[in-house]
């Protein structure tokens, strides 16, 4: 088991490095001289040349990558062109807010998805099943930036029960005042994982229910409670993997919802950076979010191996 974990971590390292290469290259796929992408246009000539030297931009690409990577490892993601502030500092603050939003939306979406998905599987073929499936398709088909707008129209403009924008004053705290800011964006963001989980859980549970061993279990006269336990343990590894992926997608994909609700997270930061063509911020945010995703995948994989006896541990 321990050796498997080590091997899995070893496998994640080249992936993480490749991800950093892609992020590094973002500066270079931007049109024009890369130097223009990392410093403001009105910088004096001497400073430009100094930066070019510091970043090794006069050297071949692999060397540049090495210089860049050594900076990144030390926590230096460069400076924003627009604000001239360090990217890393702003990013940490923003990532915290995004995490609050993503984890809330994820838990909400998972709860709804698991509930509806397993209900649909148990009542397969009935109208209950059809309703759940319809919800699932709607959940994955709805443009959530539009849903966000509709929510704002209903709950902020027409009914005035929840605030339409922001994350409340100051730092995030889990209190009533801040939570009301979370309601609308979290529900909006939750609709994708809810739809997707409904679909996945329905598929997995109905697949399990169709297997022979369920007949055996029923043949043993087990109570429904015990039967449910068997289904949960059989389905958990796959569902866990899907949930892990979804949480990662929410962290990295909250840009549109954050834009709609002006939620001050990484998404809003990215949006502002795109608008100003602030490449260091785009690069830094992408790198941090992708690394989070790599880590998350690693953790989910290890957990999956730990709870599923069918996976042979070598």
């Amino acid at each position, binding site marked *: 088991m321990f050796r498997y974990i080590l091997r899995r971590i070893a496998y994640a390292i080249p992936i993480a490095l490749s991800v950093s290469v892609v992020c590094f290259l973002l500066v270079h796929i931007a049109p024009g001289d890369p130097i223009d992408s990392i410093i403001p246009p009105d910088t004096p000539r001497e400073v430009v040349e100094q930066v070019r030297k510091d970043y090794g931009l006069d050297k071949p690409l692999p060397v540049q990558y090495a210089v860049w990577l050594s900076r990144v490892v030390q926590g230096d993601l460069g400076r924003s062109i627009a604000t001239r502030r360090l990217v890393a500092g702003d990013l940490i603050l923003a990532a915290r807010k995004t995490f609050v939003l993503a984890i809330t939306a994820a838990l909400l979406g998972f709860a709804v998805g698991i509930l509806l998905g397993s209900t649909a599987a148990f009542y397969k073929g009935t109208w209950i099943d059809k309703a759940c499936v319809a919800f699932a398709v709607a959940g994955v088909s709805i443009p959530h930036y539009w849903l966000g707008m509709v929510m704002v129209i209903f709950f902020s403009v027409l009914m005035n029960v929840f605030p339409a924008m922001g994350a409340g004053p100051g730092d995030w705290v889990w209190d009533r005042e801040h939570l009301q800011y979370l309601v609308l964006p979290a529900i909006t963001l939750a609709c994708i994982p809810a739809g997707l989980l409904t679909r996945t859980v329905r598929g997995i549970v109905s697949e399990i229910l169709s297997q022979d061993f369920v007949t*055996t*279990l*029923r043949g043993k*006269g087990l109570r429904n409670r*015990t039967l449910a336990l*068997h289904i949960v343990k059989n389905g958990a590894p796959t569902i866990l993997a899907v949930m892990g992926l979804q949480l990662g997608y929410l962290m990295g994909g909250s840009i549109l919802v954050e834009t709609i609700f002006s939620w001050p997270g990484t998404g809003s930061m990215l949006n502002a950076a795109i608008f100003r063509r602030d490449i260091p911020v785009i690069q830094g945010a992408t790198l941090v979010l992708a690394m989070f995703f790599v880590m998350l995948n690693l953790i989910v994989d290890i957990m999956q191996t730990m709870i599923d006896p069918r996976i042979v541990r070598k």
Partner: protein
Amino acid sequence: MSEDLLVRAKNLNVKFVSRDATVHAVNGVDFQLAQREVLCILGESGSGKSVTLRAIMGLNPRGKTVVEGELNVCGQDVVGASEAQMSQLRGRQVAMIFQEPMTALDPVFTIGRQIAETIVRHESISYKDALARALDLLELVQIPSAKRRLEAYPHELSGGLRQRAMIAIALSCKPKLLLADEPTTALDATVQIQILLLLRRLQQELGMGVIFVTHDLGVAGEIADRIAVMYAGRFVEEGPVRDVMRAPLHPYAQGLLGATVHAGLRGKRLTTIPGAPPDLRAIAPGCSFAPRCAMVEAACRADLPNLRSPEPGRSARCIHVNEAA
């Protein structure tokens, strides 16, 4: 009298209803099973033998299955029983083993757990004691190094051991009736015989009634007291194992015997039954075997032949069989 019977089925019908079609899987089956008796139901796939077996435990898919007629198992009326009543019966009075032990066992629970949970369900006993009983059961079904196997997952065992574990689960509450759905079909030939011998020994030691479903005449001859031959959802012949094997009455049973390899046939040409089993979505009047029968007459196609009994304990659904006076 009838209280002593383990199973009493009268005009049992099982239909699977879906939007597209209704499949008549079992069409008016009558039989009885006494205590300690071993009945073999013989038939090809799709003849309704597994469905009959599952009907006894109420295990056919819920919602789509319609069961009609009388079916009494261990004193419990099964046709009108609630799911809660059935779950009292299942596992305790009646237990079942399946063809493919790999898929019939839950892959993510240990063998010990799967045995113990059945015991805990039906008897007021702690999980720890149930696990000790599970160990005894594994030894009873002759699983080597049983203690270690308690902790094993199904995929860690060989096919033969898995089937033994399956039997151990079935026997965990000492049922009065064991239902076996082709338990040897998926196994290697040598393992088949071992499992068969084990089942026979356990049946005698524990005094269980057994209904054994198979398409293999050799297996049936090995274990059965009585044989029932099933075709298109009906019992076409029933009788003591020796009599049926030696001199089958129904043309279909005769065909089945002709299509099987056994020592007595050395040097003779094997015969096959021409044609295919009927479509169970639309049952034609008359004898279902008529389209494939060499001895068919007009009367066969007109009406379903009655069960005729040429001697006590034997019966067949064929107009060529003469009723005993």
